[in-house]
């Protein structure tokens, strides 16, 4: 069975699945920022542990579902298929050599390590490995290949391309297993959406989103297992990874360092900003977008509609533009996001709005619409990011409704300051 045949689409909610496990697309700017946020909140050592555990759990869910759907039963079949899935996702091509007692894994091209070196390598010296996601994947693949319980294998990256090693290398060793939590699959996700609503400019947004979803269906890792598209490295990724890292981190900070919660929440929001600035911005400036939709017009209503379409096209859920008053107010609503099902299933009802990613994304959409001169071919550099988002604030965002809290919809209000 071809991997692409395992894809599924919940079209009216713009949610995508692989073997009925949710997946989305994010770029390396967001992925690196997300991981850095977790480390900033918890410290490097604990951050790495949380990220590795989250990847481990998320890939156990995915690979178990893939193996079942593909009828892969032998260890060799499963390891081979797991490596192909990882490469197909754009996460890199990992060579896995393992038995039920552990083993090794290596790669010269992993999404995180390779992209980190590309982005920062000439300016920053890094000593800690960058590939917790690949470590978690390698552990999960080994466990499932040999029918071992969850966490029976631990993976540690001891060489990393980001730290100027020629290859990334991982050691896989026996550990203490435990029962896995139930998977957050398509059936679970469908329990936590509400019927889609129409927003402003709905017909155009739906049409563009459908075109982008179709384009993304053709995106897959190359011979190195990487995807270079829209002038960024793109990877199909598991919401389970993003959600577990974010919410385990924020809950832990709430329990142990309550004074730090606002700062950590701000960082989580900023990850959403980085996503919109880098991923959405690069999509809007790409030749592919120009061919599908047209060149940037600089009209703010266009930018806002296009961003809603991009969110849907990347599998983020049904984002709609509820209100927009130029330079004053933007209201984004979601009838589904990739966060809600995870949170409600794992933690129950939230006590406050928790959709940090979309909060930051909504603020960034308003900023891109109002403050970027799209027709002048802006350079989406770090300096420009700092100028837009770290100077005097122009807008503020408030999440006024949250499906994680039990509200009927999620709503994000951006107001001018």
């Amino acid at each position, binding site marked *: 069975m071809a991997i692409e045949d395992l894809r599924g689409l919940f079209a009216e909610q713009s949610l995508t699945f692989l073997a009925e496990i949710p997946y989305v697309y994010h770029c390396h700017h967001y992925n690196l920022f997300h991981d850095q946020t977790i480390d900033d909140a918890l410290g490097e050592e604990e951050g790495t542990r949380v990220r590795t555990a989250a990847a481990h759990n998320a890939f156990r869910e995915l690979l178990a579902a893939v193996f079942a759907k593909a009828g892969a039963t032998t260890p060799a079949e499963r390891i081979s298929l797991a490596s192909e899935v990882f490469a197909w996702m754009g996460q890199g091509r990992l060579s896995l050599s393992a038995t039920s007692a552990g083993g090794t894994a290596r790669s010269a091209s992993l999404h995180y390590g*390779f992209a980190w070196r*590309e982005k920062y390598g*000439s300016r920053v010296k890094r000593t800690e490995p960058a590939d917790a996601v690949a470590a978690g994947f390698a552990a999960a693949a080994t466990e499932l290949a040999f029918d071992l319980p969850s966490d029976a294998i631990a993976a540690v990256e001891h060489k990393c391309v980001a730290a100027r090693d020629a290859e990334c290398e991982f050691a896989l060793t026996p550990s203490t297993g435990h029962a896995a939590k139930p998977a957050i699959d398509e059936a679970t996700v469908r329990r936590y959406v509400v019927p889609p609503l129409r927003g402003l400019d709905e017909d155009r947004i739906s049409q563009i989103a459908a075109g982008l979803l179709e384009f993304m269906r053709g995106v897959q890792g190359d011979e190195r297992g*990487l995807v270079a598209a829209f*002038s960024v490295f793109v990877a199909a990724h598991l919401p389970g990874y993003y959600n577990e890292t974010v919410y385990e981190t924020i809950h832990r900070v709430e329990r142990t360092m309550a004074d730090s919660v606002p700062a950590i929440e701000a960082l989580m929001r900023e990850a959403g900003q980085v996503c919109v600035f880098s991923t959405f911005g690069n999509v809007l400036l790409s030749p*592919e977008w120009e061919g*599908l939709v047209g060149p940037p017009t600089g009209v703010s209503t266009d930018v806002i509609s296009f961003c809603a379409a991009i969110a849907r096209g990347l599998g983020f859920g049904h984002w709609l533009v509820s209100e927009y008053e130029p330079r004053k107010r933007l209201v984004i609503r979601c009838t589904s996001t990739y966060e809600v099902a995870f949170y409600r299933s794992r933690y129950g009802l939230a006590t406050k709005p928790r959709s940090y990613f979309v909060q930051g994304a909504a603020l960034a959409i308003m900023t891109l619409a109002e403050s970027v001169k799209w027709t002048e071919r802006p350079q989406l550099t770090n300096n420009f990011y700092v100028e837009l988002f770290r100077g005097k604030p122009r807008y503020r965002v408030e999440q006024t409704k949250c499906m994680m809290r039990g509200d009927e919809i999620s709503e994000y209000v951006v107001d001018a300051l």
Partner: protein
Amino acid sequence: MTTMPTPAQGEAGRVSLTLCREVTCIRALAWRCDLPITTDWPALAGALEAAGLVPRAPLGSVIRFDSPAGDEVLLVTATGRVQFRVHYAVPQHERKLAAERLFQLLVYAWLRLDPRAERAEPAPHE
């Protein structure tokens, strides 16, 4: 910004082709030039294929090619934009040269099919 053999045509319809870094360029991976939208795109596509580029399925009004080395060339026929994407595995210090090779290939293919090219003369380097 870099310069390359630049076809320039006489007074009317003067065209200047310049290779420059793409607006979204990260570490010199993406480069750009702009062709007249009146270009005979099917003929140019044929010339590029004859020159060794491998066509991929078009995307809307975007004609796409891969080079044997894994680079990409994208032609947006609706706007004339051309993007050269150097393969990410090319070392950073060699990316500009790789982009210049792709640009040269495009320019020569374009010159061969444009009758005005007979009057082409070098344009000042930018």
